[in-house]
């Protein structure tokens, strides 16, 4: 049995400069000043019994189980709250202490359900372990006294139970909610015997402010808070470490199993991205992997109007390969392409782009980063020299001023948001630049110093205004600029940015943010110490997305906030492997490691390895593929793990493009929206069913481990191998590690990466090579990757998507905590309890003008299309702005978004669509017809009985 046990030192690590020597149980010990006696003892392997202490939380001293004796001091102090002192002599085990601990433990046990020693499902909890450790054998108290045993359970949360009968009010859950998660949803109500854990104002967990991150469940030592899956299936017997497949934080988890069945996912304390924390998605919403909607057999059909026909893997692969060959023979080599997925592993995305470049013989490969962070790639490569964020997540611990722009970390990147909130509670200042009043603006114990609620589409005007203040008020870091940046480019930029048209006063016309507020925010960022920028899709998904990323880089360079811990420009990546899919050469113009396809030296490396010549011209981007399909030059597409019909903009255009193709191959867990237009369906594998690696937003490469066998026989990379072989381009990998070896052999920034190293170190951040064998937490330390930092002019150009009499409101779209992207995974979990449908957020003023009432249906219409959904009237959005999510296919929000896109990368302008909102009676006609189409397109033919 292997459960990957974690050592709990009882209290957090202390980084004191001075060393203290003491004696514990006769052994001399030296530890950092400020260390607790409990931790000092555990550092030498002496586990002092405790219930209220755990090393992820500050010492509290309530359970009294960790008593020790200290020579020369009276009484028996708690070892968790007593710091070590020079020359101290401590005894952790004496007869007196033993009696006291058993007495305390007996009191706890006397008010605990009588099944506590016999229930095997709870046998692993700490209460049980401590009872054994202190030698408790009997409970002498009478049974007819008042206890807490009759208190009702709270079963409201779909994932965990709270049983007050098992609660000892040690406050670990309360402290975990505060210190680890930063939500402060839990507290202790009442006093003395009436003390009890309360969620919000003594509401049910589901109705409370609880965000179901699981920190309280993880902290609970008595199984008062316990996963329902543990109650149903029993305590796990073994575990494997793996990496979460949701957002770009990349949390490490222990997948805990009983037999071959996953019982729970527990955040791994030594996870270098999450340090033992989790969110509701990664911790609990993994049941989609076992959902009955999974398609486990390959299917084909001649026309998209036909029902699907289940076939063998061999037939499906042979059919797909034959179709691709037929199309290329008939329409040319460039008539087919592929799309890689940020939900798949590095190895899988690498193989798909290899398949396209080497077996298809063109560069028509793209990835879903096209519609999210492609401007990050362009902007940061142009200014800094490489397409990645500059810092590790831990860098935020040293930030003094944090700018969050176009991101909503508490919903999109919740575990990093908790990390950031800890730093903010310690005193770092926050500047939020966002049209919406996101939670970070004001949340328990955190309040932004400035919220700049700019008009959607005006990021560049705002960022230019901030830089204008820096330059014109003499706040720039002249030494950094002189030593690190290109002087000619800086001089040109300085002259440009200092022009009055870039001032906050001029920008106010566009941003509608008072200039004085912008000036104060700029001064804070420039002079407040280490300044760190975190941004999301609210920056990139604009017609000037790349310009805005460049403007962020300009701002950071001008203030010297690059190249050390606590600063930087940090994209918060939406999906688990956005960084990795980009690194792996998924863009049509770039080979792995961001080398342009036109570079002969880069091509030569791959040509020698792959044994075929490579096309030197860039291929089609995803939106270009649809255009080319409609004009007749693009006819076949292999899509691995993406649902472009739901996720990409201008749904009518996407579906028309797909419908014009002759062979669409969808490889996915489910018959997603895109599969309605597919001719071949290849079953995918979940992250639990394959080996590989993900690279998170901080460039951290982490192992994904096969926990259970692939439900449909093959891991996704194996399916690509089958397809390549059938196309006559043999691939011979027997394990994902061999693909990583090929990546390392061909990609300088990955030269030092191997599965063996990842096993040994836990993770590495690229670049990882001879110069940095253990990886690179902070980039551009002594010089930029490109040499000198490049300032670039960022003229603000208003988007052509403008409001007018017909479409007077601006729609911006985003995501919510409980759902993930197109919802294919989270909609198939109880997470839908929190968000069962997309809602349109509208300001009370705009709602009243239109006669819209809260909860009622509204029609949302743009020049691209219309849909209907229910309204949520809220002042979170500014007047003139409406907001919704794109998690539900019944809404198909992207039928409304347009084909406008970033000038450099064609990343869609999801964040700015001119719309009108009006009352409606229910779903639109288009939604009804789409639903009917979806039902028809998902028909699967019954097998013909043998005669």
């Amino acid at each position, binding site marked *: 049995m292997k459960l990957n046990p974690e050592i709990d030192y009882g209290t957090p690590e202390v980084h004191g400069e001075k060393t203290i020597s003491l004696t514990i149980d006769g052994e001399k010990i030296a530890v950092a000043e400020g260390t607790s006696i409990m931790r000092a003892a555990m550092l030498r392997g002496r586990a002092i019994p405790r219930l209220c202490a755990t090393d992820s939380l500050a010492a509290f001293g309530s359970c009294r189980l960790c008593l020790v004796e200290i020579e020369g001091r009276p009484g028996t102090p708690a070892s968790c709250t007593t710091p070590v002192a020079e020359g101290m002599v401590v005894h952790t085990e004496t007869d007196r202490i033993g009696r006291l601990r058993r007495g305390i433990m007996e009191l706890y046990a006397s008010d605990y359900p009588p099944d506590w020693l016999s229930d095997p499902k709870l046998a692993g909890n700490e209460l049980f372990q401590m009872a054994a450790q202190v030698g408790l054998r009997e409970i002498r108290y009478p049974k007819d006294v008042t206890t807490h045993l009759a208190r009702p359970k709270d079963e409201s949360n779909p994932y965990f139970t709270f049983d007050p009968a098992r609660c000892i009010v040690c406050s670990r859950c309360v402290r975990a909610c505060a210190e680890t998660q930063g939500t402060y949803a839990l507290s202790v109500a009442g006093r003395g015997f009436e003390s009890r854990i309360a969620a919000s104002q003594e509401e049910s967990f589901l109705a409370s402010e609880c965000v179901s991150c699981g920190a309280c469940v993880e902290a609970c030592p008595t199984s008062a808070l316990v996963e329902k899956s543990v109650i149903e299936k029993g305590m796990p017997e073994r575990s494997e470490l793996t990496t979460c497949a949701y957002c770009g934080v990349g949390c490490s988890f222990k997948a805990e199993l009983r037999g071959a069945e996953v019982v729970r996912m527990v955040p791994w304390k030594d996870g270098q991205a999450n340090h033992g924390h989790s969110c509701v998605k990664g911790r609990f919403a993994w049941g989609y992997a076992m959902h009955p909607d999974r398609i486990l057999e390959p299917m084909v059909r001649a026309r998209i109007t036909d029902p699907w026909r289940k076939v063998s893997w061999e037939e499906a692969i042979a059919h797909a390969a034959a179709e691709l060959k037929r199309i290329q023979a008939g329409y040319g080599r*460039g008539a087919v392409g592929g799309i890689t997925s940020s939900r798949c592993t590095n190895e899988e995305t690498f193989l798909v782009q290899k398949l396209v470049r080497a077996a298809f013989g063109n560069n028509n490969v793209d990835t879903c980063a096209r519609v999210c962070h492609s401007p990050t790639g362009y902007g940061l490569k142009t200014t800094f020299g490489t397409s990645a964020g500059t810092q590790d997540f831990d860098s935020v611990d040293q930030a003094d001023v944090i700018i969050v722009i176009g991101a909503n970390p508490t919903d999109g990147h919740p575990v990093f948001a908790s990390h950031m909130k800890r730093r903010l509670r310690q005193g770092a200042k926050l500047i939020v630049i966002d049209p919406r009043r996101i939670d970070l603006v004001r949340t328990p114990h955190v309040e932004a110093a400035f919220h700049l609620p700019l008009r959607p589409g005006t990021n560049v005007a705002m960022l230019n205004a901030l830089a204008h203040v820096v330059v014109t008020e003499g706040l720039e870091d002249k030494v950094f600029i002189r030593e690190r940046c290109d002087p000619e480019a800086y001089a040109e930029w300085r002259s440009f940015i200092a022009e009055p048209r870039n001032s906050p006063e001029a920008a106010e016309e566009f941003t509608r943010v008072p200039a004085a507020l912008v000036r104060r925010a700029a001064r804070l960022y420039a002079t407040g110490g280490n300044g760190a920028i975190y941004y999301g899709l609210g920056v990139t998904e604009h017609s000037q997305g790349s310009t805005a990323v460049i403007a962020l880089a300009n701002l950071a360079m001008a203030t010297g906030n690059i190249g050390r811990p606590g600063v930087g420009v940090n994209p918060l990546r939406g999906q688990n492997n956005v960084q990795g899919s980009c690194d792996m050469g998924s863009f049509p113009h770039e080979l792995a490691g961001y080398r342009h396809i*036109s570079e002969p030296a880069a091509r030569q490396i791959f040509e020698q390895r792959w044994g075929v010549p490579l096309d030197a*011209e*860039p291929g089609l981007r995803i939106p270009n593929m649809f255009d*080319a399909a409609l004009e007749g030059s693009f006819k076949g597409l292999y899509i691995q793990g993406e649902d472009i019909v739901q996720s990409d903009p201008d749904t009518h255009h996407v579906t028309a493009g797909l419908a014009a193709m002759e062979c669409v191959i969808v490889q996915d867990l489910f018959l997603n929206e895109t599969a309605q237009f597919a001719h071949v369906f290849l079953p995918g594998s979940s992250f639990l069913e394959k080996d590989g690696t993900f690279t998170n937003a901080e460039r951290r490469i982490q192992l994904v481990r096969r926990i259970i066998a692939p439900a449909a026989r093959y891991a996704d990379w194996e399916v690509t191998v089958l397809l390549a072989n059938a196309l006559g381009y043999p691939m011979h990998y027997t394990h994902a590690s061999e693909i990583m070896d090929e990546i390392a052999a061909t990609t300088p920034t990955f030269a030092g990466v191997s599965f063996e190293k990842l096993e040994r170190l836990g993770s590495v951040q690229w670049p990882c090579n001879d110069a940095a064998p253990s990886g690179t937490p902070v980039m551009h330390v002594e010089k930029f990757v490109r040499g000198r930092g490049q300032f670039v*002019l960022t003229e603000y*150009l208003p988007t052509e998507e403008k409001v007018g009499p017909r479409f007077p409101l601006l729609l911006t779209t985003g995501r919510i905590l409980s759902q993930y992207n197109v919802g294919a995974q989270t909609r198939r979990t109880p997470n839908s309890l929190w968000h069962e449908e997309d809602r349109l957020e509208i300001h009370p003023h705009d709602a009243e003008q239109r006669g819209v009432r809260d909860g009622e249906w509204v029609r949302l219409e743009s020049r691209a299309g219309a849909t209907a959904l229910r309204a949520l009237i809220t002042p979170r959005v500014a007047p003139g702005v409406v907001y919704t999510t794109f998690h539900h296919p019944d809404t198909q929000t992207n039928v409304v978004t347009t084909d406008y896109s970033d*000038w450099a990368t064609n990343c869609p302008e999801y964040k700015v669509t001119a719309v009108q909102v009006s009352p409606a009676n229910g779903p639109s006609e288009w939604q009804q017809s789409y639903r009917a189409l979806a039902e028809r397109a998902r028909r699967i033919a019954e097998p013909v009985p043998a005669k």
Partner: protein
Amino acid sequence: MSPEKLTRMANEIARFFAAQPEEKAVAGTADHLRRFWDPRMRRQILAHLESGGAGLEPIARAALLRLREKQSLPAR
């Protein structure tokens, strides 16, 4: 792809580079088109240029003229 759409895209690229001195703006726009546009898109916009290039803004037009001079596109 429609000439109107390609023209709009080329103009958007040119407008970014237009903040720079004209020579750099034209070179930057041409380089961007060469490095990021699939050859069939370049062929189509060059064909549009040949037929008058309606809608093309000056920097985009100049960049396309330079693109046309400097390279031969593979036939696919």
